């Protein structure tokens, strides 16, 4: 197909012919094209539909501010909704589709909304759809939801990978137009570490879109030379296709680099996009300016575009927006479009300038003091109607209208930390205010300096200034360039227009909507935005906020700055989820922590469970076992009958040393440690300062000045943090040193009546581990297997005679194998977390489900452990009345009256007879398991005044799942309540 609107010249590579499709139709473009420029080159003006009225829309801008030409790209998992055709770099084979239309872009059934627009005014939905009550959710809302939305998500997983990274620099320059390039040259030549980032794939900004000369050569050539010089500097990093999207505290910026969006798919291993967090000492914002429209009736037809965009398409992309173009402007800049088009041989049918004293135009008819009041053309502009200075109306034939209402500096990033822009009368625009993000300066058009020479100069001077702060001397060298002053008469909307005049194109907010908002007292800017949805579209109001504000100002009779300001929040342009997630996807969402027996357990076919970041063996199925309960019951029974081994490495281990180590533990644990003898272990209960139980574990004393304490797996990090707080902030002069050793030791619980016999085969003979020599709660350093250093603790979580043995982690794999080999004589089993849980419930040990952050030592039956003779964290506040009520919850056991019934954790305890409701709630089941020893389901529960209610029959209400189980309240210690097994 012929590129009917392709002109000569420009910066496209005609040697590259790229085929692409739009809505299934095949077209061709060139290297350097965007989808928008290529479509325009092919004479395609209709590119999309608006959000609410489904009005036909074309492309309005040539940049990231585009509100209208949104398309879906690619398909399957790579389907990408809402991509602006203006920034989609053309590649061979690109598939693009229009969106938010049915059945086709030309014939969209939902365009009926446009006919009904008089009923669908701003906020109409707040006033209706209330009756009948049920209809909102059943009829109205589903209909609205179906019609709303823009592009589609395929629902398939995105196959591409994304990356993140971190960069550091002296100076981050945001935008590589004349100001940014000039700043980068200045800073780069001075030796500073510079990052120059631009959202475009070509550096140069407006230099690539204008016919200006810089230093006697074409602006685009000057830009190319500047980039070449910068590329040769080792201290300058050039980042094209990189949008700086947010300015965060203390010089931190977020930036998205689109690495592979300009190709059909990334090459293997290449990320599609990278999200960079840039830490800068200084930043220079050179983000340019955005041209703004003038509202008039039907100003949204395909072909009505920004004048600067028409110029960009012509000069950079060698594309005429249409064969016939008219210009509508309130300032001199619009005239440049006419001049450039005429120079390229495009027919300019009229220049309509709102200013009575508009400068003359060569080669086109000028209407000074005139206004465009309406337009015609359903799927593409055919003509505009103007009112001349003399008051006559006249129709001007044109397929494109280039509109210029002046320029708004791109102050967005200056607002990201609540800086407020300030009003500039000359530009009739907001410019950066005094409250810039720390370390940021603004140069060029973004700062309100709109001429090319001004941009080059302020860029260079800005660089000199910020580098001076850093002690780097730089000198500004500014080439000669165009330096025209701004001549503009503010003009926002054509009030004579009869029809709807659009302010926010995408969201279909018109001047009338703003008038209605005013009439209904939604006059503050925030109310206006929220009521009308002005500025809430995917362009975040880049082309609409100013217009809306200006209309509201007119209605309230206030000035624009009195009416409000335009505020912008991150991101500058929308950022893909993929980039922000980076590599943290799928199985790599969080790092995995593996225990020392992981490989061995994998070989044994263990089923693993996530415990925080740890993967632990949950149970070890044997051939023939078809249900997890079979495996777990077997592991429990075998352990209780003979011996079992469990990897308990995940428990936190903190090494506590120092002359005051014991005193320190006395303060952080509720119970006393000062008198614990060397070679002994003690259970420890740690409270929060509010008196609630925090964590439990053991402390083993290896020397007068040396303890090793354990924490629960879940709280390892938190307890260490809390202990460092106590050490550094509360008792800074205690001589105590802490360090985590969780990972350094592979630790196994060896439990069951034969555990000693098994360990005796492992522990070297010179260590006597008999009951007498190494009694319950003993600990010591031993050697095993012929000399390997190890630590042995005689502690038990299962209630059996049990030990924990620790070896340096590199021997952990060999250790479990050795235990299994040596244990064969005793039919040793490995057991997982499930059997561990069963045995601790049988024994009545509180764990995470009981230590749930709301229970006290009293609730857990450990009230007497809280020593009242010493200061410790949580002691004082644990005495509050509310925590010591007569009917306080107490830990009890529950056992079904009918042993075939199952107790479930999360059921609520109720009196056997009587109502089942919240008012009669007596407590809840915290943990439950099937006990193969007792051949019954059992549970632990927190019951009001539970200690006094043993023997009572109650019911466990579980209305959630329709269960109701009668249970007997029993002691939480189902097995060996007196602990005899522990001491044999």
């Amino acid at each position, binding site marked *: 197909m012929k590129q009917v609107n392709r002109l000569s010249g420009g910066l496209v590579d005609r040697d590259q012919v790229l085929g692409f499709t739009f809505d299934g139709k095949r077209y061709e473009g060139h290297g350097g094209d965007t989808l928008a420029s290529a479509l325009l080159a092919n004479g395609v003006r209709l590119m999309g539909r608006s959000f609410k009225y489904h009005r036909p829309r074309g492309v309005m801008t040539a940049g990231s501010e585009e509100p209208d030409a949104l398309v879906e790209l690619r398909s399957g998992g790579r389907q990408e909704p809402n991509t602006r055709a203006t920034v989609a770099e053309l590649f061979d084979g690109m598939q693009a589709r229009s969106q938010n239309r049915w059945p086709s872009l030309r014939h969209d059934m939902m365009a009926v909304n446009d006919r009904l627009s008089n009923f669908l005014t701003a906020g109409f939905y707040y006033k209706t759809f209330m009756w009948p009550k049920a209809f909102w959710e059943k009829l109205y809302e589903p209909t609205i939801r179906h019609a709303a939305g823009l592009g589609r998500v395929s629902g398939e997983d995105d196959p591409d990978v994304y990356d993140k990274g971190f960069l550091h620099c002296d100076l981050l320059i945001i935008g590589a137009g004349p100001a940014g390039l000039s700043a980068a040259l200045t800073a780069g030549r001075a030796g500073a570490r510079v990052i120059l980032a631009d959202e475009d794939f070509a550096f140069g900004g407006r230099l690539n879109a204008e016919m200006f000369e810089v230093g006697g050569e074409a602006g685009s050539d000057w830009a190319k030379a500047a980039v070449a010089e910068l590329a040769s500097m080792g201290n300058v990093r050039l980042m094209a296709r990189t949008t700086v999207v947010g300015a965060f505290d203390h010089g*931190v910026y977020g930036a998205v680099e689109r690495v592979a969006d300009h190709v059909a798919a990334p090459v293997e291993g290449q990320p599609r996009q990278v999200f960079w967090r840039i830490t800068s000492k200084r930043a220079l914002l050179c983000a340019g300016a955005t041209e703004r429209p003038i509202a008039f009736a039907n100003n949204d037809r395909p072909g009505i575009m920004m004048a600067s965009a028409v110029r960009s398409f012509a000069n950079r992309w060698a594309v005429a927006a249409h064969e016939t173009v008219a210009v509508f402007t309130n300032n001199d800049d619009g005239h440049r479009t006419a001049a450039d088009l005429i120079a390229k041989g495009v027919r300019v049918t009229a220049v309509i300038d709102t200013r009575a004293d508009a400068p003359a135009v060569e080669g086109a008819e000028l209407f000074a003091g005139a206004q465009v009041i309406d337009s015609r053309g359903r799927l593409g502009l055919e003509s505009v109607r103007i009112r001349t200075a003399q008051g006559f109306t006249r129709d001007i034939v044109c397929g494109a209208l280039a509109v210029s209402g002046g320029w708004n500096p791109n102050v967005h990033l200056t607002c990201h930390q609540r800086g407020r822009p300030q009003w500039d009368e000359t530009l009739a625009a907001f410019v950066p205010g005094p409250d810039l993000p720390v370390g940021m300066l603004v140069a060029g058009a973004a700062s309100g300096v709109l001429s090319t020479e001004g941009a080059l100069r302020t860029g260079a001077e800005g660089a000199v200034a910020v580098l001076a702060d850093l002690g780097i001397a730089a000198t500004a060298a500014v080439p000669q360039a165009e330096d025209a002053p701004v001549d503009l008469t503010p003009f926002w909307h054509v009030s004579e227009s009869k029809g709807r005049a659009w302010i926010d194109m995408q969201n279909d907010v018109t001047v009338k909507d703003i008038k209605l908002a005013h009439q209904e007292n939604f006059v503050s800017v925030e109310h206006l935005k929220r009521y009308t949805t002005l500025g809430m579209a995917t362009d975040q109001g880049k082309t609409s906020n100013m217009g809306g504000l200006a209309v509201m100002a007119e209605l309230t009779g206030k000035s624009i700055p009195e009416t409000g300001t335009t505020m912008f929040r991150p991101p500058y342009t929308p950022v893909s989820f993929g980039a922000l997630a980076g590599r943290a996807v799928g199985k790599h969402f969080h790092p995995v922590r593996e225990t020392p027996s992981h490989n061995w357990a994998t070989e044994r076919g263990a089923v693993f469970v996530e415990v925080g970041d740890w993967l632990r063996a949950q149970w070890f199925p044997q051939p023939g076992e078809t249900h997890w309960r079979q495996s777990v019951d077997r592991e429990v029974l075998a352990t209780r009958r003979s011996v079992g081994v469990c990897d308990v490495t995940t428990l936190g281990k903190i090494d506590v040393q120092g002359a005051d180590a014991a005193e320190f533990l006395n303060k952080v644990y509720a119970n006393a440690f000062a008198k614990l003898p060397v070679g002994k272990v003690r259970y420890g209960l740690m409270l929060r300062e509010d008196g609630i139980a925090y964590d439990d574990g053991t402390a083993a004393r290896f020397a007068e000045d040396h303890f090793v304490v354990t924490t629960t797996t879940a709280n390892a990090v938190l307890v260490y943090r809390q202990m460092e*707080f106590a050490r550094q902030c509360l008792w*800074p*002069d205690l001589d105590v040193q802490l360090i985590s050793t969780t990972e350094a030791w592979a630790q196994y619980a060896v439990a069951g009546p034969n555990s000693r016999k098994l360990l005796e085969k492992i522990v070297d003979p010179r260590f006597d581990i008999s009951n007498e020599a190494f009694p319950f709660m003993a600990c010591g350093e031993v050697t095993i297997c012929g000399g390997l250093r190890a630590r042995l603790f005689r502690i038990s979580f299962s209630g059996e005679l049990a030990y924990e043995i620790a070896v340096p982690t590199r021997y952990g794999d060999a250790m479990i194998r050795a235990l299994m080999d040596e244990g064969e004589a005793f039919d040793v089993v490995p057991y997982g977390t499930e059997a561990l849980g069963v045995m601790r419930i049988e024994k009545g040990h509180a764990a995470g489900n009981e230590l749930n952050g709301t229970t006290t030592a009293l609730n857990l039956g450990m009230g007497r452990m809280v020593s009242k003779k010493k200061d410790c964290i949580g002691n004082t506040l644990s*005495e509050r009345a509310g925590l010591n009520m007569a009917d306080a919850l107490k830990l009890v056991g529950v056992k079904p009256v009918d042993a075939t019934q199952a107790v479930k954790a999360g059921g609520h305890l109720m009196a056997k007879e009587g109502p089942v409701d919240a008012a009669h709630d007596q407590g809840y089941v915290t943990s439950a398991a099937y006990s193969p020893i007792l051949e019954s389901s059992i549970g632990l529960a927190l019951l009001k005044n539970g200690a006094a209610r043993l023997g009572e029959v109650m019911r466990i209400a579980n209305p959630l799942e329709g269960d109701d189980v009668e249970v007997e309240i029993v002691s939480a210690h189902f097995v060996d309540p007196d602990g005899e097994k522990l001491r044999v």
Partner: protein
Amino acid sequence: MIIDHPLLGPRDAQEFVYLGDADLINRPDWQAEDAADAFHDYLYLRDNPAGVHRELWYHEQGDRSWLVVTRDTLTHEISKVELARDVARAQGRGR
């Protein structure tokens, strides 16, 4: 945010864990007459100013120092960073 660690220089705040009001250093005397009230006020009541705030941060992904950071809660400007241990000692929490 960037916290200028007194020993390590500027570090990203992401490496730190935030605790809160630096007054949490001033744990009351458990044997005082009004200990119950003092502990209540210590643990639960906060100035919560809109402006300069002295607060505790823990360099968990760094050197595990607790720091007292003086930061403006309106602008996030950080004006001072001290080792909490030094602050605690200066406030008489030593022996």
